[in-house]
Structures are given as structure tokens and as C-alpha cells.
């Protein structure tokens, strides 16, 4: 048995596991009482649908015969690694931004986030980094704090 469609195989298999877990957890809730369906009813129903369809997707992604496999060029592989690295950087920076926003404060975290994103991830010039960074911080500060009255975390700098 060979994998014909890797995307469908992995996603289908993952969702199958998720469905099984959801079904298992739903059964720990009350599914049906003498009055009718209970709190476990919809979760179990959705779990059954997820299991059924993800099973079909996984099976359909398999093939009994070996198909023609597309050979990836070195250049394409390099490009893909590069884009995965960039997305990973985005992810790490967003997590750090979210985690430090409250403790360090809006001004410092936002300035650092924008600086790293613009200068090192997106490789913009110093002029563009400074201009876009400052414009973004000032606009969002005015929008959130003055216009919408949002209380942004002050963190380490208390004077603003």
C-alpha cells in the first residue's frame, strides 16, 4: 500500500485520531437521558462524522500501485525550506509577542516585534523599518488608546 496523496493522508490520519479522541471524551459525558439528548450528544455526533469522513479521506489517499512520483528539484526544495523557516520565524515571534505583551508592555514589545519583523524577517531597509515601525506604533496607539479606549499594558515603561 502506497501513499498517493501525502497531504490528504497526513491530514486525514490526524483528523481521524482527533475524531477518535473526541468520541472517547464525549462518551465520558452523558449522551442521552430519559428526556432526550444530553451534553455529550453533539460532541459524539460530530466525532462520528469526523471519524467517518477522515477515514474515507485517508483510505482514498492510498493506492495499491506505485504511481509516478514527482521529483523535486534542488531549487524547489531550497525554496520550500526557506519558506518554512520564514513561517516558523513568524510563529515564534507572534508567540513571544503575545507572551511578553502584558509583562513588558505594549510599547517595548510592539517596537521590538516590528523591528525584528521588518528588518530581519522581511529584510526591509533601515529607512523603511524606521518609518513603517513608527507609523504602525503611533497609528495603533492612537486607534486603540484614544479612539477605542482600550487599556494597553504599560509593563516596564509606566509614564505613557
Amino acid at each position, binding site marked *: 500500500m502506497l501513499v498517493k496523496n501525502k497531504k490528504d493522508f497526513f491530514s486525514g490520519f490526524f483528523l481521524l485520531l482527533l475524531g477518535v479522541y473526541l468520541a472517547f471524551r464525549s462518551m465520558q459525558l452523558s449522551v442521552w437521558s430519559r428526556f432526550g439528548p444530553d*451534553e455529550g450528544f453533539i460532541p459524539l455526533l460530530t466525532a462520528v462524522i469526523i471519524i467517518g*469522513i477522515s477515514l474515507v479521506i485517508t483510505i482514498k489517499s492510498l493506492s495499491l500501485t506505485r504511481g509516478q512520483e514527482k521529483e523535486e528539484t534542488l531549487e524547489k526544495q531550497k525554496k520550500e525550506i526557506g519558506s518554512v523557516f520564514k513561517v516558523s520565524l513568524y510563529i515564534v515571534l507572534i508567540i513571544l509577542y503575545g507572551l511578553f505583551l502584558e509583562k513588558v508592555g505594549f510599547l517595548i514589545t510592539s517596537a521590538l516585534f516590528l523591528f525584528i519583523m*521588518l528588518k530581519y524577517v522581511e529584510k526591509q531597509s533601515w529607512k523603511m523599518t524606521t518609518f513603517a515601525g513608527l507609523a504602525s506604533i503611533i497609528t495603533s496607539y492612537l486607534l486603540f488608546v484614544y479612539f477605542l479606549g482600550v487599556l494597553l499594558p504599560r509593563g516596564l515603561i509606566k509614564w505613557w
Partner: protein
Amino acid sequence: MIENLLMGFNISLTFHNIIMCFIGCTLGQIIGVLPGLGPTATIAMLLTLTYKLNVTSAIIMLSGIYYGAQYGGTITSVLFKIPGEASTVVTIFDGYQMALQGRAGKALGIAAFGSFIAGTAGTIALSILAPPLSGFALMFGPPEYTALMILGLTLVIYLGSGSTMKAILMGALGLALGTVGMDPLTAIERFTFGSQSLVEGFNMAVLAMGLFGIGEILYMAESTEARAMRDVVKCPSRLRELLPDRKDWKISMMPIARGSVLGFFLGILPGGGAMISSFAAYALEKRISRHPERFGKGAIEGVAGPESANNSAVNGAFIPLLTLGIPSNVVMALLMGAFILHGITPGPFIMEKHPNLFWGLVTSMYIGNVILLILNIPLIKFFVKIMEVPYAVLSPLIIMICVIGAYSLNYNPMDVIFMFIFGLVGYLMKKFDYEPAPLMLAFVVGEIFEKSIRQSLVLSHGNPLIFFTRPISLILMVVALFVIVSPLITVLFKRGRLISEYKQIVKEESKEI
């Protein structure tokens, strides 16, 4: 109705609301111009901001984004052969050809005027049809609501552009995500893993910002094609170039009228929306034309019909939300979220309980269409310039707005983490060819659906036949079953030749784009 409209204009014509409408329309126009970033992502990102605004102003602004985006998407379709919006893909077929022939101004002009006429006609139809439909909706009990939601979800899934199986899977996942938190009937905690942040369930805005905002940004971070700009044809510089002449009007009047009517009714249909309306209008025009061979080679009616249809579809889409409380597409689901964030449940009672909001919103659409016409004709050059802003600069700003927006919901960093997780899910869904729209829609209607289905089954002592013994729910269930058993689209489109043509067009033309 005249009284109600006057009351509505009293609200929508206040300085504050005109400004909100202007902001919404301009933002919509801008994001319509930017390929990749659509009204769904923008409304998702701005949901949290509008929480701090007055509810009427917030809804007026968010709605402006939706219909404004339909206008904006046209510019890039005609001038760059890049559809700013899915609903303007069809405009490329003839619009870009017209631009190559040096008639870009006429294409943009007729699109703007057609959109204005259709948008206004759609708003009039919404004003007329919504009140009686609301009365009809009062006859709905839990079984009818369940059946309606089953039909709605079924249509959304079957009319989606991707794999039907994957769409059903995403719908089920959306319903499952909606069950996290306290059970709406028994108040028992489900899947909270002991976390206080999950007791209330996932916040709709957090899910939407993650799936559509962060997910989109992550996807664009790796996709170089999405950032690249293509050949640009000459942008019309003088106002006269944008005004269609008498001959253009003569050819386009009927397509605009047909597009307006077709678009409005397809917009009402769950899962219909602007994209399908524009394709259907194009197919219709091509089929009834005496010179179908002109289509795809710069026929002005190939721009006028679809552009009118996608605008009136937006108005039609408001009908199910405002009368039944059921969103017919994902943007409407987000607008429903905005209503709920402000403590208002859209539905048949909205006209009675919140007439100011209802009529204020409806009348703001008249104003919005005028604003968009004014914005479109003289400012096309400005909107073309917006395309030059690099994504590299836009994406950090969008992430920052999303992070602060998520945090400001409850001043809880956990919301930012949840948003990031959903962003990652949204990104992976795009990578693995799963559509996020059915997930979002199912999540939004999840609670009402669960309540209705359980209440119905309690009423019938667990007998599912309750959905087939009441006339309205019977009709809705039969239609839903029909859609499931024999793909309705194929049947409809084969008989009317409309949908088969639509599918063929999508197939042929998407190869070219």
C-alpha cells in the same frame, strides 16, 4: 415602511455614522484592492475593535467593509488581471480584455455604475422583503430552526469551491469546537481541561482572527506568488475616460438589471453569496447573448452583469441574518458575531426590539453606495497606488492589530495564544486544501443549532421524526436531504444549464488566470 426608512436615515445620516460608513467603505475598497486580504479577514480583525463602539456604528462600518470590497476587487481585476476578491474573478474575463484594448476606464466606469445601481436596488429589495420575512420567521420553533440550519450548512458545504467531503469535515469540526465550554442547557463543562479561560468557550473573534487573519498572513509569508505584482495596463487618468458612453449604457442596462435581480436572490441562498452570483450572472449573459463569441474578448456586458450581481448579492445575504438570525455565508457569520458581541441576537425580533439598528443599517447601505461611487470614479489612481504597499510592511502591522485586538477582548494573554493556535490551524488548512469557511460558519451557528436540535428532540421524547411532521421543517429537511443525496447543484445546473456553464467557466478561466 417610509416612516421606518425616515427613522433609519435619521440614524445613518448622523455625522458619526456617516464617518463610520465612510471608514467601512474605504477600508473595504482598500482591502478589495489588495489581493489575498479579503473582507472576511478584515472583518475578523476588526471585530474586537468594534466592541468598543456603539453597536449601530459598528455594524454600519463592518457592513461597509463587505460591500466596499466588492467595488475594490474590480480595479485589480481590470487593471492587473488579479482578482482582489473571489467575486471579481469573473470580471477579469472581459474587464482585462477591455483594458488591453485601451477601454479600462469604460470597464471600471460601468462596473462602478452597475455596482451602484445593483447595490441600491438590492437595498430597496432588502427594505421591502425583510419585514414580511421577519413575520414569517416568527412561526419558527426549534425543529424549524434545526431544519433551516441543517439546510444552510448543507448548502454552504455543497456550494463551496473545494472538496465536499473536506467541507463536511470542517463543518463537523466547527460544531465540535463550538461545544467547548459550558453546555448551553445543562451548564456542565465540556472539554475545558480545567482551564478557566475555556469555561466560556472559544471567543468567536479570536477564532476568526486566527483562522482568517493570522492564517492568511502566515500563508502569504511563504507564498511569493501572492506578493508578486503582474503587468499593469494603463490606468485611466481623466474622469471622461471612466464615463461609459450612450452605446455602452444601451448594451449594459439589461445585464445590470438581470444581474441585480439574480444576484439578490442568489445572495439570499445560504452558501450563495457574491462569488456564485457573479459567475451565474456571467453565464446567464453569455447564454442569452446574440453574440456569445464576444465574451472573453472585451464584452462590456460581461463586466456589467457580474459586477451588478456581486453587489446586490451582498444585500441579499443580509436577509437570512436579519430575519431568521442565520448567516448565509462566512462574512455574515462574522457580522452575526459582531451583533452577539454587543449582546444582540439577530433574528425576527431585531426589527421589533432594535428598530434603530435595523433601519439604521439598511439606510446606511444607500449612503454607502453613494460614498463608494464617489470614491470610485475620481480616486481610482489612488487605490491603484495602494497595491504598491509591500506585504512585507503590511503583515507585521496586521499581526500587531490582531494581537492587541485579541488581548483587549478580555485583557487575557491566553486569548492571544488561542488566536495564534487557530492561526496555525488556518495556515495548515490552506496548505492541506481545507476550507476554513464551513468551520467558521458551523462554529457560529453551533450553539443555536445544538440548542434547537436538543430542544426539538426533548419535545418529541427523542423521536427524530419531529423534523418531518411539521410542514416548514419538513420542506426544509426534504430540500436538505435532496442536496445531500443527489448533488443539487449538478441537477439544477444541468437542467438550467446555468451551473454546468458556471463550473465550466470556473474550470476554463481559472486555468488562464
